C-alpha cells in the first residue's frame, strides 16, 4: 500500500500492527455495515501518520474494498495521507498533527457518558507523540473526569523521525508518568499478541482511565526496517516491499536480509 503510494509511514504502522489487529479482529465491538452504530467501541488513531495500519484493518474488516488500499494518498481516493473522518468510513476522527487525539477522545468519552452509551474508547498514540504538552493536559483531564471508558495505548517503539526517542527528548518513564497522573497503568510487550489482547480486555474494567504502555519494535517484522528511524516516513521500493511482505508472511529470505540489512 505504501509502496503503491510512493510515500507514507511504514515504521510506526508496523510497530502498531499487532495492537490494531487485536482491536479490530477481536476486542472492538463494531459493525462495518453500520460504522456509526451508537453502541460501538471507538478506535482513535491519534498518531495519524500511521494511517496505513488503520486503513488495512478497516478494509479487512469490510468498511471499504481492500482494492482501495492501493490508491492510498492518490488524488480522488478517500484514503488521505492522514485520516479524515468525513472521507473514510470507520475513521472516527481526523488526525495528523500530533498530540490531539487523546483530548478529542476525552470529549467523546464525556459525550458517551452523558448519553449512557456502553462503548469503550481505545486511543493509540506514539511515544514520540507524548512529547507534545497537550498529551499531558489530556492525561490530567481524563483522570480528573474519572473516564473509565477510555484506554490510551502508547505504541512505545522508542524511535521518532530524528532518531531514538531517548536521545531526542526522553519521555520515559511513561508508566510512572501516567500513574502519577492518576491512570491505571499496564506495561506490556506490544508485539506479543497474548499480552496485547489481555491488556486491552483488562483495561475495559479499570476504575478510571487506563494506559497501556506497549513496548514495540518499529518496523516490526521487516528485517531492514526494524529499529531504524530511517523507515519512519519512507516508502519501500518495489523490491523492498516484496521482501517485506515475504518476511511478514513468515518466509525467511536470509540472503536478501543480509544484503539489504547491511
Amino acid at each position, binding site marked *: 500500500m505504501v509502496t503503491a503510494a510512493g510515500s507514507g509511514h511504514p515504521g510506526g504502522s508496523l510497530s502498531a500492527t499487532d495492537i490494531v489487529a487485536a482491536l479490530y479482529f477481536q476486542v472492538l465491538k463494531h459493525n462495518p455495515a453500520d460504522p456509526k452504530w451508537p453502541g460501538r467501541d471507538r478506535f482513535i488513531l491519534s498518531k495519524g501518520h500511521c494511517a496505513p495500519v488503520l486503513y488495512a484493518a478497516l478494509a479487512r474488516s469490510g468498511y471499504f474494498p481492500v482494492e482501495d488500499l492501493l490508491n492510498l494518498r492518490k488524488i480522488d481516493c478517500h484514503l488521505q495521507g492522514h485520516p479524515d473522518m468525513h472521507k473514510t468510513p470507520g475513521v472516527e*476522527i481526523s488526525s495528523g498533527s500530533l498530540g490531539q487525539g487523546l483530548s478529542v477522545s476525552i470529549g467523546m468519552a*464525556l459525550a458517551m457518558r452523558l448519553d449512557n452509551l456502553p462503548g469503550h474508547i481505545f486511543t493509540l498514540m506514539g511515544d514520540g507523540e507524548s512529547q507534545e504538552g497537550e498529551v499531558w*493536559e489530556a492525561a490530567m*483531564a481524563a483522570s480528573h473526569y474519572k473516564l473509565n471508558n477510555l484506554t490510551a495505548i502508547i505504541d512505545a517503539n522508542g524511535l521518532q523521525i530524528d532518531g531514538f526517542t531517548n536521545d531526542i527528548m526522553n519521555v520515559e518513564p511513561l508508566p510512572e508518568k501516567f500513574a502519577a497522573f492518576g491512570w491505571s497503568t499496564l506495561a506490556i510487550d506490544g508485539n506479543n499478541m497474548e499480552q496485547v489482547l489481555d491488556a486491552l480486555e483488562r483495561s475495559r474494567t479499570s476504575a478510571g482511565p487506563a494506559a497501556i504502555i506497549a513496548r514495540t519494535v518499529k518496523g516490526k517484522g521487516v528485517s531492514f526496517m526494524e529499529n531504524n528511524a530511517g523507515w519512519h516516513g519512507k516508502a519501500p521500493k518495489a523490491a523492498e516491499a516484496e521482501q517485506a511482505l515475504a518476511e511478514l508472511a513468515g518466509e525467511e529470505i536470509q540472503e536478501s536480509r543480509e544484503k539489504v540489512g547491511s
Partner: protein
Amino acid sequence: MAAELKPRATRDAYGEALLELGARHPDVVALDADLSGSTKSGKFAAAYPQRFFNAGVAEANMMNMAAGLAIGGKIPYASTFAVFATGRAFDQVRQSIAQPRLPVRICASHGGLTVGEDGCTHQSIEDIGLMRMLPNMRVVVPADFNQTYAAVIESYNLPGPMYLRTGRPSVPFLYEKVPEGIGNGCDILKEGSDISIFACGIMVAKALEAARLLEKRDIDAEVVNVSIIKPIDADTVAGSLSKTGRAITAEEHSIIGGLGNAVAEVAAEQCPVRIGRLGIKDTFGKSGHPDQLLEEFHLTVADLVSLALDMQKSE
C-alpha cells in the same frame, strides 16, 4: 441608538444566551479554560454542572475536548479569552474543528484593545484574521448586547463551526430588542450616499456617532454594521460601495486580516473604490484604560470623522 438602555457588555449577552440555550436544548454543552467568570460561561456552569466542563488552564485540551463532544453529537460552546482561543489553540481549532467542520462554537471574550489594563499579552488584535483564514469557519463580531444574544441563540442551528468575538467593556445598545437573528451579517443602520462606513463590534456605535457629526459637515455617510465578517455579505458591501464610491472600515483589530481586509477584498473584485482602514496599525497594544487606549490607537469618533474628511478633501 437605544439610548435609554444602560450600556452592557457583549460577553454578558453570551452568558445569558448560553443559559437560555442550555434550558432549551439538552445537547448543548459548554467548556471553559478557567475564565468562566470573565467569559460569563459560569452562569451555564452553575445551572447545568453536568453539561459544563472546565478544562483548567489548558486551552488546547479544551478545544479538542469540544471537538470530541461534537463528534459525540453535542453542540459545544467553548469559551476563553480571544487571544487564547485563537492563538494558543490555533492548531487544535484548525485540525479538529475547522477541517472536520464540527459544530463547535468558539465564543471568545475580551477581544481587542479594550481588555485595557492587562496590556498587550491579553489584547487580541489578530483573532479575526486567524479565524477568517480557516476554511469552514464562520466569524461573527456582534455590535451590542442584543445582537450578541441573537447571534448566540441563532448559532445553535449552524451546521459547521463558528468563532464569535465578544468584548469586555459595556457598550451602548444599538438594537432596542433582541433581533430575530443576525441575517446575512450586513446591517445598514443608516443609509447615506457620500461614504460607506463598515464597522464591527464596539466601532459600530462610534461609526453612527461619526455619521451624525459628518452630517453637519455635509457628508452623508452610510453606516453598515458588519457582524458576520466571514462569509461576508459581498452583495451588500458591493452595493454600498457602488452607491457611495468610497469607504472606511473600522474595527478593534489589526488592519491586517480583519474586517478591513474582508471589505477590501470585495471591493478589489467587485467595485474598486478607495478604502481607508481604521484599526490597529500593525503594532501591539499596551496597558491603559480602554478609553485612553482607543484614543492612543486612533479608534475614536474623532478619528472616524477626520478620516472621512481627509478622504473627501483628497479627491
